[in-house]
């Protein structure tokens, strides 16, 4: 088991290498330049200033040298400094990471508590009114982008009831209640969009599992229907659902970036948006690198959870 985890971790290295390369290069290809932006803020700048700024930021060196310096630093936890504030990128990210992590975790919790029970219900009562309602709802959730829903939630309650979701961020450990009150709406929206596919998957796999011979065996033992479903069907049905959740991790993070913007949650998403608008390369690359690592680790966790769910893969 330990050997397996170590092997999996080593296998992440080439993936991360390529991901970092792509991130680094694509940053420099997008139009706009940090130095232009800096100069624009300062009317009296001259051509000489430009070279001076580039040199001071290390942007005058060839791209591959810059990359090697950056990745070398990244390996020891140094992601460089923000071009604007001169704060270490690692510090910036570490301040924001727990917030996005909290949002993601809450969203995942919402998604699972919505999707799995409804998916099971839909499978058990296939083709009934309840099943149709659940499936239509999930289609709707698939079709409606969460930024649009987020905007609706911001606008309509304030028009109708003069109420709008709280937008003031309070750190969790300062005041958990107010923190959750703020995070809950974006977490629900993000969770619902994730729940759509998860619900459909749960329904499909449960329908498949409920047809299996071992379910008939369980019924032949005299087990009640809830016992058959919970003890015999669910764990088998969840195996593909867990894979799906792993695959949706990047979607979850992408959604978080957008919803953080709408609901003013100062997480990685907001950090990224600020950084992009300022062309703050080290921050952008750092955020992407950390997100990449996050996605890879989520998928590693998914793979490891198979061992717990499915004894057949445990002894490989």
């Amino acid at each position: 088991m330990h050997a397996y985890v170590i092997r999996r971790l080593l296998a992440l290295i080439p993936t991360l290498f390529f991901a970092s390369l792509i991130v680094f290069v694509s940053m420099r290809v997008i139009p706009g330049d940090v130095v232009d932006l800096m100069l624009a803020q300062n009317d009296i700048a001259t051509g000489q200033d430009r070279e001076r700024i580039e040199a001071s930021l290390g942007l005058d060196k060839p791209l591959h040298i810059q990359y090697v310096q950056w990745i070398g630093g990244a390996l020891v936890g140094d992601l460089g400094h923000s071009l604007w504030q001169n704060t270490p990128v690692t510090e910036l990210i570490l301040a924001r990471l727990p917030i996005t992590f909290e949002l993601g975790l809450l969203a995942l919790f919402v998604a699972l508590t919505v999707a799995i029970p409804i998916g099971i219900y839909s499978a058990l009562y296939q083709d009934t009114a309840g099943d149709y309602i659940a499936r239509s709802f999930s289609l709707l959730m698939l079709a409606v982008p969460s930024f649009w829903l987020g905007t609706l939630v911001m606008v309509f309650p304030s028009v109708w009831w003069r109420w709008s979701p709280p937008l003031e961020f309070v750190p969790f450990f300062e005041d958990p209640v107010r923190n959750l009150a703020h995070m809950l709406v974006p977490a629900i929206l993000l969770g619902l969009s994730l729940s759509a596919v998860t619900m459909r998957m749960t329904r499909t796999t449960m329908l498949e599992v409920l047809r299996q011979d071992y379910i008939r065996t369980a019924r032949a033992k005299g087990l009640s229907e809830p016992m058959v479903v919970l003890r015999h069907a669910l764990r088998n049905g969840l195996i593909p659902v867990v894979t799906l959740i792993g695959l949706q991790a990047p979607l979850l993070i992408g959604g978080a970036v957008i919803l953080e913007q709408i609901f003013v949650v100062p997480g990685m998403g907001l950090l990224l948006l600020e950084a992009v608008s300022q062309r703050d390369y080290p921050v952008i690359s750092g955020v992407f690198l950390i997100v990449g690592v996050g996605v890879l680790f989520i998928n590693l966790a998914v793979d490891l959870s198979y061992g717990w769910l499915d004894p057949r893969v445990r002894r490989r």
Partner: protein
Amino acid sequence: MSGHLLSIEDLSVTFRSERGPVRAVHSVSLHVDEGETLAIVGESGSGKSVTALSILRLIGDAGRIDRGRILFDGRDLLTLDKAGIRSIRGDRISMIFQEPMSSLNPVLTVGKQVAEPIRLHRGKSWAQAMEDAAELLERVAIPDARERLGDYPHQFSGGMRQRVMIAMALACQPRLIIADEPTTALDVTVQAQILHLLKELTRELRSALILITHDLGVVARYADRVAVMYAGRVVETAPARALYARPSHPYTLGLMASIPGLDAPAGTRLPTIRGQPPDLANLPEGCPFVPRCPHARAICSSAVPPLEPVGPDHLRACYGFE
């Protein structure tokens, strides 16, 4: 009260299908006495499994029991409420299925699966039920039974899994065990061991056994009585000896002729029953065996022949032939 442990009376079962309703079981009447082994034989699709599954009402959503009664201990299993039938399943009547590969849950330990009915019906704690499960696995001759309680089905061979299924079926000492082709999926060498074990253990428990099989050789060795099914009907039923001594339905004769006899001279071609198995959605008028029957007469196509006695406890559904 009939005095039988189980009696099926006039059972009819229909399935919904794309080609319209399929009557898989038609007016079947059967009975099993305490401690007796009844074999049900017939070609694929003749309704053996559906009859067996109907006893515990496990035919699934696509099927409907249209008619009949299934009396067990004087109670009609078909009119019991859900809790009532559940208290019978796995406790008084248990089932062993054909596919040992897929009939065990891949994500639960074997010990837990064997212990489950004990915990459910006997109200024992998991620890006590596991203790019983270990003993049961020993009785079905699984080597190192106690150590293997925590293993999963994929760690067992087909034969061993079927032993686990048997242990599970015996867990609550049922009065009746229904084994639906318990050895069809297994190696020939393993088949005999499993059937022997099953017979032995049911004898010890004095349980009755319904043994469903394709194999008339199996019937001869293990059954007390036999019911032959064709196209969803029982066409002949008799004590095993009587059936071998005097098979009376042309279909039974055909089946008998298709087992290679030990006394057949070398090179004799094995007779098989000519023609195709019937299409249940599109049965002919009258006796369903007519298209394949070497003795068919005009009367055979007029109406389905009723089951009538041809000897002591020996019935057949045929208008007769020379």
